[in-house]
């Protein structure tokens, strides 16, 4: 199997990303280094402590070589742990320049059999070190950002696509509560959905969000949007509802005075969700918390 990072026909977004991002954006800086005169034993201890498998040999930011775990194992086999590093380091080092695009780094990892490359600036001063892990992590983060942007801009096509959005809630976090509802409203509005349906989705979302903030130890609100319906799944981590029948009675609430002073606990939450939803289902247990599933048809 081809294990190179770059696919055969990479999408344009990916190509733009690897050319736009620079080595200096993804490298680890400053690098952990060792001097020529330190012993192999010192190098081994530094690597152990920093949990790395290799490092540049440098003095005053000037690069002399690279010492890796392989070199240390060889020295160990020869019982030469007290030798200076310079005796075992690799000196024909391949380096990257900090202003090169990340694409260059990717091709270097494919071309050479090194697991890390020292990074120099234009004055040949050692400024960092780069591993394929640095590249992978940064690329993944950038890709996630791009995917998020794409999701926000994507048009929903009948039966072709569904879109999921997920929000977290925390106990008594009234400052951020309601964000999911306001966001989903804004999103559906941007897709020119029927205002009545937008409102139904937003009301259900808001009440479910508030229920989690007021009554649960935190949870998630997920939206699955298709061209035909919006599903809202509210999942919390507990502690579960003692009496489900009571909880579904208009005006029933276990909220205390403090919660009521904040404008919640009218005992209308689940009732309001039921009122606006075409399908409504609630499950609750002490072990698994509460899950509410509400569907709003868009026709």
């Amino acid at each position: 199997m081809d294990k190179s990072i770059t696919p055969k026909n990479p999408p344009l977004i990916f190509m733009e990303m690897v050319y736009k991002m620079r080595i200096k954006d993804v490298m680890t800086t400053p690098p952990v280094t060792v001097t020529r005169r330190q012993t192999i034993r010192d190098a081994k201890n530094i690597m152990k402590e920093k949990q790395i498998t290799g490092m540049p040999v440098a003095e005053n930011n000037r690069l002399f070589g690279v010492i890796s775990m392989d070199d240390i194992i060889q020295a160990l086999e020869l019982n030469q742990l007290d030798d200076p590093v310079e005796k075992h380091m690799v000196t024909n080092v391949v380096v990257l320049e900090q202003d090169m695009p990340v694409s260059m780094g990717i091709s270097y990892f494919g071309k050479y059999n090194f697991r890390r490359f020292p990074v120099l600036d234009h004055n040949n001063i050692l400024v960092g070190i780069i591993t394929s892990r640095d590249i992978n992590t940064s690329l993944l983060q950038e890709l996630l950002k791009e995917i998020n942007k794409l999701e926000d801009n994507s048009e929903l096509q009948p039966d072709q696509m569904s879109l999921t959005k997920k929000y977290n809630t925390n106990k008594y976090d009234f400052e951020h509560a309601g964000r999911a509802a306001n966001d989903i409203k804004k999103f559906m509005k941007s897709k020119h959905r029927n205002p009545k349906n937008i409102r139904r989705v937003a009301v259900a979302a808001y009440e479910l969000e508030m229920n989690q903030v007021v009554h649960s130890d935190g949870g998630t609100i997920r939206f699955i949007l298709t061209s035909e319906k919006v599903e809202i799944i509210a999942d919390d981590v507990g502690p579960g509802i003692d009496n489900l029948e009571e909880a579904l009675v208009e005006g029933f609430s276990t909220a205390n005075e403090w919660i009521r002073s904040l404008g919640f606990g009218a005992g209308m939450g689940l009732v309001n969700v039921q009122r606006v939803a075409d399908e409504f289902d609630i499950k609750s247990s002490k072990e698994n918390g509460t899950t509410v599933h509400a569907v709003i048809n868009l026709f």
Partner: protein
Amino acid sequence: MRINDIQKKIDAEVIFKATDADDININNVTVSDLMSDVLVVDEPELLIVSSLATDQVLRTADIVCASCVVIVNEKNLNQQMIERAEEFDITLLRTPHTTFKTCAKLNELMSE
């Protein structure tokens, strides 16, 4: 009712003025400090009167597409409320009057 007239009638301070504030004609008023009660209201050109001075009033107002929020009793409004009013582009007014007096004055204005 025009928002300008409402502001004068209830001696309100304009905390934030929405971009469409001058074009809106308020036809419906709801009064509550419990947000679930507000979420039941499905009326256009809505004004919400509340003594609850938290950003949840603005979040709720956004969900029911209200045009204006009036906070009574000259309550202190925190920065988040103002930010939410700006974010959702909803006019936010603050009046020194009580809920009862505010409603009585609004009723007068509506009957004119």
